[in-house]
């Protein structure tokens, strides 16, 4: 069974938002809601500054609080590592929205259930990359199977020091970040 993961090389991101728009179109995300976003964070005082650009999405945690807090069993951890949702079992109670420390979930008002990034499971099944990865101009986002040592994610994790968001939350995310600051070392 593959173990899917994403690695985000933050230095290669220019915050062009191609990922954000592609995701919305691919997944019919309603107006005003997002499955992914890009945060700009600049530290320091002019002119001694450093910038971080950070793409955020569902972390597809190995220890997913959204799944543990789902009262109906709609949210689940799939065998391939993705955190997914059985729409017909979701009652829209928002437990998962509250439980997620990454603010990755929302209630899709048009469809009446909780919604989130699926790593574009439907595309991955067809052998394609998730929409955000496919359109990423900077090749900042890479996606693949951790079990395959040649996959872009395995390579990226081997060659870089990687971090995860809110490590202390103990969620064991499957989205990794490398080269945090825009400025080269």
């Amino acid at each position: 069974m593959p173990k899917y993961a994403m690695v985000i090389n933050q230095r290669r991101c220019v915050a062009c938002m191609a990922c954000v728009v592609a995701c919305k179109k691919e997944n019919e995300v309603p107006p005003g809601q997002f499955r992914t976003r890009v945060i700009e964070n600049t530290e320091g005082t002019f002119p001694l500054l450093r910038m971080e650009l950070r793409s955020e999405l569902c972390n597809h945690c190995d220890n997913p609080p959204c799944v543990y807090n789902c009262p109906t069993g709609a949210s689940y951890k799939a065998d391939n590592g993705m955190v997914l949702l059985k729409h017909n079992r979701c009652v829209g109670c928002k437990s998962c929205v509250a439980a997620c420390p990454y603010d990755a979930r929302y209630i899709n008002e048009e469809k009446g259930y909780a919604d989130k990034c699926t790593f574009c499971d439907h595309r991955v099944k067809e052998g394609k990359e998730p929409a955000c990865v496919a359109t990423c101009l900077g090749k900042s986002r890479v996606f693949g199977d951790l079990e395959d040592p040649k996959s872009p994610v395995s390579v990226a994790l081997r060659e870089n020091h990687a971090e995860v968001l809110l490590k202390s939350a103990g969620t064991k995310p499957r989205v990794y970040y490398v080269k945090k600051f825009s400025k080269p070392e």
Partner: protein
Amino acid sequence: MTKSISRRSFLKISGTTTVGLTVAATLPDKFLLWAEEQGMIKATYTPTLCEICFWKCGVMAKTLNGRVVKLEGNPNHPGARGKLCGRGNGGAGLLYDPDRLKTPMIRTGERGDGKYRKASWDEALNYVAEKLTRIKQQHGPEAVALFTHGTPTDHFLPLLSAFGSPNVGMPSFAQCRGPRDVGLELTFGEGSGSPERVDLINSKVAVLIGSHLGENMHNSQVQDYTEAIGKGVKFIVVDPRYSIAAGKAHAWLPIRPATDLALLLAWINVIISEGLYDREYLQKYADGFGELAAAVKEYTPEWAEKETDIPAAQIVETARLMGKNAPNVCIHPGRHAAWYGDDAQRSRAMGILTALLGSWGRPGGMYLATTASFPKGESKPFPDTKAALNLGPYPFAGAEGVTQAIRTATIEAKPYPVKAWIVTGTNLMKSVPNQKETLEAIGKLDLLVAVDVMPFDTVMLADVILPECSYLERHDALAVGKGKSLTVSLRQPVVPPKFDSKPGWWIAKELGKRLGLAEYFPWETYEDKIKKQCQGWGVNYEELKKLGTITIPDTDNPYITPANQPTFKTASGKIELYSKELKEKGFDPVPRYTRHPVPGPGEFRLVYGRSGVHTFSRTTNNPELNELFPENAVWLNAAKAKEMGIADGSYVVLENQDGVKSNKVRVKVTERIRQDCVYLVHGFGSTSKELHKAYRKGADDQQLITRYAVDPICGGTGMRVNFVRLKKEGSNA
């Protein structure tokens, strides 16, 4: 009716095995993706070309049941390489924008009051043709001018030429790339091309002067840029603002605005005085080194420090970094270059620096354009015309025309009257400085015709509005790319035109017919014309239709080799470090620094730029892009904000030196900008009530650009010469 199907009843229907065309035909839009996943309907992909900006990226348009649900990059296309930027991804937002122009309209009220009546195409076209004919009879054909941008040009410029007028004006020249191209043409005999032939992926060092790549979003160039960043190419970024690119720079030089030429001349000074230039290259290809060396002697790093605010040591250090990595250094020529009125000379300085480093035609510098081309077809010659007035008094103005020269001539009726403007694909109120002059000129017209997809500000001033369909609904001229290789790409309709909108080619042809110019449009449909062209070019049209773009093999020769020698189409046939052409016309043969006015106490220089999700004002109403960036904010240095008691997120009004006031605009208090300037993303603050999302959202930089410094060489309008004050406003709540 389709809208009333509830999810539950729809699921019931689709649960049966007899689901077929009947259900598919009535599928509500929101079930399309679901139906695809269930295998009920199949997607079709149509290759075409984007026109959300002017990079013309190859697109694969995915449609379900006749609705465009997603746009993806065409892997065959060199500008897209299988990817689209945020704007390109959101292109269907234009197609389905409810605010689109839907039918031809004829003005019934005063100009600008927005009162129109619907008209049939026949009526509207006859109206325009009759007026144009009358103007031709009374004043001559040259009394009709065309303002244009993008692919409509391919249809309406031939119409103008056939009509007998030479007076075209494209803001892409005097308001944008013109000074850059003229500066490079005077130096190398040719411009940098579009896409610019920057070989960033092979650079060791690259220099960006005001170019905020990543915010200034040009697909393949940003792909190259990020690849270069990933590879560790050292970028030197010159910008008064800590742009995204500045954040990724090896060295960020937060320059005092309007002093870029001083920095460039000091760099040239160091490269020459330290002997870091490429002697052999210059001997072989360049002319005027001695004169250049003598002229830049005075521009020492110590002198430049006082002008630019950049420490002399850093000027020397960055010059050495370039010199030591030559020739694999790219001095990016920039794109929008109409800044201060001496812009062609700044571009010359960038070209001279490129030449000194031996980077033109070398890996990591500026690669050479393909010399291959398609054969020219036969077409009916256009009539002779009276002397053009679209070049103004500027000896090096380009064929794209100087917009404001036409505007001035319209106001003054000199050297002859201009009585009609046809405006296609450009929002003049937002693209040309000094809106008062634009309005004054429009006031002198007997006819203003606008051809556009959306009711932009300028469209809503027109006497007749002709709704063009969006790029996803039409054919356009074949796009010939002359980058590394020769390419040809096709724009073709993905879906039929919505409403009563028509392709630009059809509008031009129908107008031509009514003006007695039918013989200039000797084809039934535009596809016929394209097919014939392909035949003449030896391009397989059916293959082009399928692939979207074809790269002609073995047409690339990007670098200088013994067998591949560059040609310079300058007067001397060499790179002109010293320009005799300029000297003859009374200009400085080597760029010379002059000081520009600086803001007074309490004033800030207004600088402007781009957001990655918008193309000028064109996209501000696009629902999919507006959602991400609905209004601009004015960037204000944090220390200044504290001193002035202005809080982040509060609203202010900007007032310029001439008392012109902006809409209220949110303040972004940030460390990312110098204290002597403020920054706006261009294109906001629409005055068109028909743009329901963009109307009066944010501040319009062009409204505040009442002054402009004209480049006497080429007519470029330097627009970063206005100073504003911030006046506090109540909150927006």
